[in-house]
């Protein structure tokens, strides 16, 4: 063990790069990315709740940021990430029971989470804008 040993070059098992990109693979990666984004997104939730607890001045600052173009874009992405991760999670829970692994089923389930998340996000924002106009 006196001299440094070079690591032995062993063949690696096939990884992401050699496979054809499939929808299930894409959505698996997206599930992890949205999870990571939501992890840091909780900073916004904490800021918002603490500002509400602190007082009107702090809350006004949060409202001003959330109402700005950047704030709205972040919130829109946040909404989609949340819904997508939730639906993706439901899909994983279905898979955990051993169901939905057939070639057609798994594609259908995966596509449904994607379409569902986009549809629900748009619906939430449409309802949100109606509320913002109506319930002021």
């Amino acid at each position, binding site marked *: 063990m006196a001299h440094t040993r070079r690591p032995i070059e062993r063949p690696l098992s096939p990884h992401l790069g050699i496979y054809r990109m499939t929808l299930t693979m894409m959505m698996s990666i997206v599930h992890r990315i949205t999870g990571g984004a939501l992890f840091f997104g909780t900073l916004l939730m904490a800021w918002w709740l603490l500002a509400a*607890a602190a007082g*009107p001045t702090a809350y006004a600052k949060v409202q001003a940021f959330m109402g700005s173009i950047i704030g709205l874009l972040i919130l829109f992405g946040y909404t989609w990430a949340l819904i997508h991760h939730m639906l993706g999670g*439901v899909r994983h829970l279905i898979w955990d029971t051993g169901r939905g692994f057939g070639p057609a089923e798994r594609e259908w389930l995966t596509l449904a989470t994607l379409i569902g998340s986009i549809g629900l996000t748009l619906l939430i924002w449409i309802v949100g804008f109606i509320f913002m106009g109506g319930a002021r």
Partner: protein
Amino acid sequence: MSDKQTSMRTPLSRVRYLGSAHSGTDHFWKQRVSSVALVPLTIIFVVIIIGLLGRNHAAATQILGSPFVAITIMLFVIASAYHMWLGMQVIIEDYVHSDMKLTLIMCNTFFCFVIGLSCLYALVKLSFGV
């Protein structure tokens, strides 16, 4: 596990030691339990947020401090902090193989506790109006 014995260890001892990580399916199961809890909590949370849109501070704090809303968001915060604590740990373990791994796992724990406690503190303050 195959029937062919490749080690002197009996199947019972393998089960007792809960596999190579000594924790069995513990982490996996906690992730699932928190995810099941988060499905309804997330839906109610989104509905609450929609109800808060466009309201000023006085109205928003009144809603946030009401028992049903405060308790629901507290549950959402606890389940989220726990779920993301477990989730981020897996992400770190998958991609970080250097000395930084333990540091990052520790930071992950601190971050989740800070976020969780901050949100809970705010909600308790809003509820009791101190």
